[in-house]
């Protein structure tokens, strides 16, 4: 490890970092703006000036920008140097010449990096006596508020939005001291990662518009470490709440998963928990058939009585419910009468993919693995729509090979400005295979085909990688050449990765992915990884619990083999054939529903038990790579609401009073899931005898919050389920990252204080990254999941058009789509048709098309999409009124009359 000297003190630091990075990691207060650990150095703000000396004899030295200087062995510098300090104060003084000084009315106030840096440099008295320049602000859509006058031109926004996230509708405009950051004209920011501008911007130019609607200062927020529930990746978040409502979501750094960034679906999807129509009151249906509100005890009694009187209970769990809730439900109904609640076609695909991850030839890829991969084959999944944060990682992965030319020139990769000038827009091998265009096509080499042809491409790649996969019969030359190219890229890579998913609900696509993984493991397996995308936040957890499909249980109810149906956090109308659901719900004597969003299933409930959303519940979720992570309650339940698992525990015979009781039982019953219990410290964990606080030290308003109602400060609610307290009191230091509720450090009030909570900047958190991994991977059971290539898809030989799913980043996730700002961004549901297929069916663009699928029908607007493979109709997810798609579902499409 190199040794550097800062103000005469020697320090060992990691190799290959710059001086600013090193100084911050060592705990020095060295101010900066334009540098960002994920965006690198560009030398724009000139804030991190230090004096650097050539050697120990050099007494004069020179002023340099710490972010631009490699912290090589023997580097000597002074942060305290008078001239450097004077220069740093001057930079703030220049930045402040045009800043509006509107902190009291700025949403960033109190957690503003510009405030922190201003205080840090000591600049406090204004000498500039001339008028300030002003800008016009823009409307940027439902997520982001724009206030350009506050801008200090650090260029972080455009570097994130354009360079890092690939956005094209934003940029720097103008020149000199009129540089403007925004869109060419007012309008919605199109990029799916725009919300990161809130955290990337060091001041209040880009602020959270959803927070603004129910604004709370950082010091008045009660927060908890949470896990995003809007896709299968399990990004870590802070959920901040006050007065019974979630106020905002912030990124919670996890080195192996989300790093510094979230997607907009994950950041702004939280508002489903604040909806006015959210069912919060237990309901019980009386003998006359009308429901009426009930107290918790009454509803619980009714449920208990109904279960006791039931002639057969079946229970449908949910891939969006926690492992604990699903396990409690399973305990209630019995393992053969519990379903994980994933529709059968998707459940089959999920089971194959879980097996491939757990026992397959390659270790599961974390998002960090994906980000660092230098050749990627995405087979049969559209991560940009189904697991958005992964698309951001893929975007970085595409730069890995070109970055090697930067290494060759001796330029460090953190020197982003130089690196981008050198590699320009070059991309490395990122091959994708999906049915139509995706949001990654600008950097990918896309193949578009029917699922069978996607599978054939996969098998052909496996064949060309070498090994035992036979050639694909009757393969056309273009497809075979494509496969050769992909195989060559994977073989030549240092860190190849294959990514697949359950999006197409296609067993053959997954078997093709398994064949590629197997072949890759053999020829270039050392650093190879297998990335997986699943449907929802706990699809993997639910699939691991296992059980019959929901269809099977509903058939049993419809057939009278069971008369009582318990539904946990599951809108079955999204998952199963509407006709089957109707029959089952009509036949059921009693339907017990636990949920926190209004769904048609809730409307049908005989007994409704209001559950806690992610914000009011503790629970464990298993992400796409088999990592179990604990999400904690950010706010106490109001009224009669409870966590689903607590309702269910009360209905079982088990003596489960707290979360840890269920986890203990789960670990005993299921050794393969035992590690999930260790995802975070248990409720009895203490630091110096104290719990970790949810509120920040400066929770100043605590005694005033309820002063209009009572002079007395009520006792904070107990939390028997976690080592977190609903309080500002508690352990202040060395809080394990899985229990950390906010980033806040002396002198560092903004999210930039994260550096104080990391072992190494951009590396692991102090105390280790949260969560436990359930899959060791690389078992390499060669016989497992063997398959053979399907026949090519022949549009002429099938009845109608093959129906395939089309995911939309904002519309397809159930919960996020219930968040009004996200709903504003959701695509209008359309059915996509290739123009020639549309013509053959007499359908024009933007006209209504009637879709008939397994006896059900719906009308959708037609969108002619020349990128869609021939013979397909791509249907939106969700598709209200239509049965779920399997790998071979055919639809009849005709003009709607």
């Amino acid at each position: 490890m190199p040794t550097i000297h800062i103000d005469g003190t020697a320090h060992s630091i990691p190799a290959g970092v710059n001086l600013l990075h090193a100084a911050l990691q060592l705990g020095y207060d060295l101010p900066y703006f334009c540098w960002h650990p994920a965006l690198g150095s560009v030398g724009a703000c000139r804030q991190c000036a230090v004096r650097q000396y050539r050697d120990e004899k050099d007494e004069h030295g020179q002023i340099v920008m710490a972010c631009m200087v490699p912290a090589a062995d023997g580097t000597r510098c002074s942060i305290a140097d008078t001239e450097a300090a004077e220069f740093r104060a001057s930079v703030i003084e220049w930045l402040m010449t045009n800043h509006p000084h509107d902190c009291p009315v700025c949403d960033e106030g109190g957690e503003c990096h510009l405030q922190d840096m201003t205080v840090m440099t000591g600049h406090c008295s204004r000498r500039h006596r001339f008028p300030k320049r002003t800008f016009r602000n823009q409307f940027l859509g439902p997520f982001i508020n724009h206030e350009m006058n506050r801008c200090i031109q650090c260029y972080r926004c455009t570097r994130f939005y354009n360079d890092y996230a690939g956005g094209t509708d934003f940029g720097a405009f103008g020149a000199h001291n009129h540089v403007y950051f925004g869109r060419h004209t007012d309008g919605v920011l199109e990029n799916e990662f725009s919300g990161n501008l809130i955290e990337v911007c060091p001041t209040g130019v880009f602020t959270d518009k959803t927070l603004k609607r129910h604004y709370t200062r950082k010091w008045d927020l009660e927060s908890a470490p949470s896990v995003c529930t809007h896709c299968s990746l399990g990004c870590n978040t802070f959920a901040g709440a006050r007065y019974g409502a979630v106020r905002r979501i912030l990124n919670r750094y996890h080195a192996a998963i989300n790093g510094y960034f979230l997607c907009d679906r994950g950041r702004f999807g939280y508002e489903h928990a604040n909806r006015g129509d959210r069912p919060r009151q237990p309901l019980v249906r009386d003998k006359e058939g009308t429901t009426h509100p009930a107290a918790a005890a009454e509803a619980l009694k009714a449920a208990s009585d109904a279960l006791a009187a039931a002639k057969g209970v079946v229970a449908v769990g949910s891939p969006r419910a926690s492992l604990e809730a699903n396990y409690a439900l399973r305990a209630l109904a019995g393992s053969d009468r519990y379903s994980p609640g994933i529709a059968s076609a998707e459940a089959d695909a999920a089971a194959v993919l879980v097996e491939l991850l757990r026992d397959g030839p390659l270790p599961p890829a974390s998002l960090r693995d994906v980000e660092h991969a230098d050749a990627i084959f995405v087979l049969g999944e559209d991560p940009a729509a189904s697991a958005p944060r992964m698309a951001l990682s893929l975007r970085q992965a595409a730069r890995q090979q070109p970055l090697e030319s930067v290494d060759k020139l001796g330029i460090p990769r953190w020197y982003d400005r130089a690196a981008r000038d050198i590699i320009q827009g070059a991309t490395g091998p990122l091959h994708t295979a999906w049915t139509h265009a995706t949001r990654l096509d600008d950097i990918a080499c896309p193949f578009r085909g029917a699922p069978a042809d996607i599978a054939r491409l996969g098998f052909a790649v496996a064949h060309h990688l070498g090994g035992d996969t036979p050639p694909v019969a009757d393969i056309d030359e273009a497809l075979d050449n494509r496969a050769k190219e992909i195989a060559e890229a994977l073989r030549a890579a240092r860190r190849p990765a294959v990514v697949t998913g359950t999006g197409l609900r296609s067993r053959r696509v997954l078997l093709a992915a398994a064949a590629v993984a197997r072949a890759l493991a053999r020829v270039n397996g050392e650093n190879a990884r297998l990335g997986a995308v699943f449907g929802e936040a706990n699809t993997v957890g639910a699939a691991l619990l296992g059980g019959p499909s929901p269809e099977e249980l509903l058939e049993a109810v419809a057939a009278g083999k069971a008369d009582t149906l318990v539904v946990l956090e599951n809108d079955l109308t999204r998952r199963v054939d509407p006709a089957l659901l109707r029959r089952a719900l009509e036949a059921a004597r009693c339907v017990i529903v636990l949920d926190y969003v209004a769904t048609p299933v809730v409307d049908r409930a005989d007994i409704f038990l209001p559950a806690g959303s992610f914000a009011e519940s503790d629970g464990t979720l298993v992400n796409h790579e088999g990592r179990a992570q604990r999400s904690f309650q950010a706010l106490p339940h109001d009224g009669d609401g409870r966590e689903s698992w607590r309702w269910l525990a009360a209905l079982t015979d088990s003596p489960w009073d707290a979360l840890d009781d269920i986890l203990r039982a789960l670990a005993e019953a299921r050794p393969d899931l035992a590690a999930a219990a260790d995802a975070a410290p248990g409720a009895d964990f203490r630091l110096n005898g104290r719990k970790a606080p949810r509120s920040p030290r400066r929770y100043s308003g605590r005694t005033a919050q309820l002063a209009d109602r009572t002079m007395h400060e009520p006792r904070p609610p107990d939390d028997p389920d976690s080592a977190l307290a609903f309080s500002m009191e508690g352990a202040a230091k060395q809080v394990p990252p899985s229990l950390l509720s906010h980033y806040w450090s002396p002198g560092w009030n903004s999210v930039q204080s994260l550096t104080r909570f990391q072992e190494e900047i951009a590396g692991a958190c102090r105390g280790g990254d949260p969560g436990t991994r359930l899959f060791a991977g690389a078992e390499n059971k060669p016989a497992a999941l063997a398959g053979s290539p399907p026949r090519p898809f022949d549009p002429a030989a099938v009845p109608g058009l093959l129906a395939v799913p089309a995911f939309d980043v904002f519309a397809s996730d159930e919960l996020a789509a219930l968040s009004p700002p996200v709903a504003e961004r959701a695509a209008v549901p359309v059915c996509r048709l290739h123009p020639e297929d549309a013509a053959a069916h007499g359908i024009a663009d933007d006209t209504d098309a009637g879709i008939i699928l397994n006896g059900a029908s719906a009308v959708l607007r037609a969108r002619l999409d020349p990128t869609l493979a021939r013979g397909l109709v791509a249907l939106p997810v969700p598709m209200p009124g239509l049965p779920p798609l399997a790998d071979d579902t055919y639809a009849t499409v005709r003009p709607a009359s």
Partner: protein
Amino acid sequence: MIRRPLTALIRPGEPPPGLRDYEAADGYAAVRGTLKDLQPGDVIDRVKEAGLRGRGGAGFQTAMKWGFVPQGEDAPRRKYLVCNADEMEPGTFKDRYLMEGNPHQLIEGMILAAFAIGAEVAYIFLRDEYPLAAKRLRAALAEARDGGHLGKDIHGSGFNLDIHLHISAGRYICGEETALLNALEGKRAVPRAKPPFPPVAGLWGKPTIVNNVETLCYVPHILRHGAEWFRGLGKGRDGGTKLYGASGRVRHPGIWELPMGTTMREIIEDHAGGMREGYRLRGVIPGGASTDFLVPEEHMDLPMDFESVQKAGSRLGTGTMIILDDKTCPVGMLRNLQLFFSRESCGWCTPCRDGIPWIEKTLAAIEAGDGREEDIALLHAHTRLLGPGRTFCAFAPGAMEPLQSALRYFEDDFRRHITEHRCPYANGR
């Protein structure tokens, strides 16, 4: 013996020599000879022997720059030559004179330079305000193509070259070679990080040489007449001739090709005809707006070559001087210069973007009689805080050069503005 090679064929007020006239005067002879008989390395050696230094302002050894371009098997095949014709330095019009007066000379120089570095594509990055130069360059490029001097397999040598004319959208910073490259790529005209330097990773990330018009125009002459001839043209250590110019209240403002190292006195008194009646010389900005003032009391006999001017505390820059007379307010002149710089700052780094406007406003206040005692210290502090190393590129340090020297040479003028609350020169206007 040819004494004024660069301007020998230029007839002000008349159309430039066409291809036939240019060839008749031995034009393109260097191209024919070189491509047939010499290796690229030979061209570099001859220019090195001559000691040609860049005429854009920095005076860097041209052959050394060319030598930085990676060659051989492992080097990127694609390389570029770019002619920096974005002549936007205030008071400077020498490149315009060369391009309007003899465009084929530049094209011939570019062919030779491109051959030397192995570039098959070259660009002329031309200032938008030079439409006549654009017209004449376009015509000359077409003639050169028709004449077989450009295109595939030039004169049977196997060497290919095409030259594209790019008209700038117009920003001073485009004269900075890496900002020029960004602009040429269609990006914001912001300087790039260095390293990597353009000879290694320039236009579209590929090895690129950026040379000034005057520099490139010299290459054919060096190849035709030899290094010794070139060195003999100069008066001091630097060889060749230089286009010197003078603007301001001299009798005959203009531009002259003179031996490198001609003294300031000779330029102002013999060629510019001295000061106009009733005006006294107070100071000279020797080579564009971003060079330190020289003053008649100390520098009249200074040889105007790179080293001598540097020793005197300024820079030769473009060699086209702006003359300050005794009836023009130096504070007003400085304010005008800083207004230019504050508008032309690219906006990338803080000291330049926000510091120069503050300087400009302060100077405007002083000029308007609203100056304060502490303003002098503020201006002094800025010349230090915007100095080399503090900013991303050399723009702001350049902007500070006339200011810091003006504060030294004309301090009384600044003080009188502040104490008298008015511009002492106001009545004289």
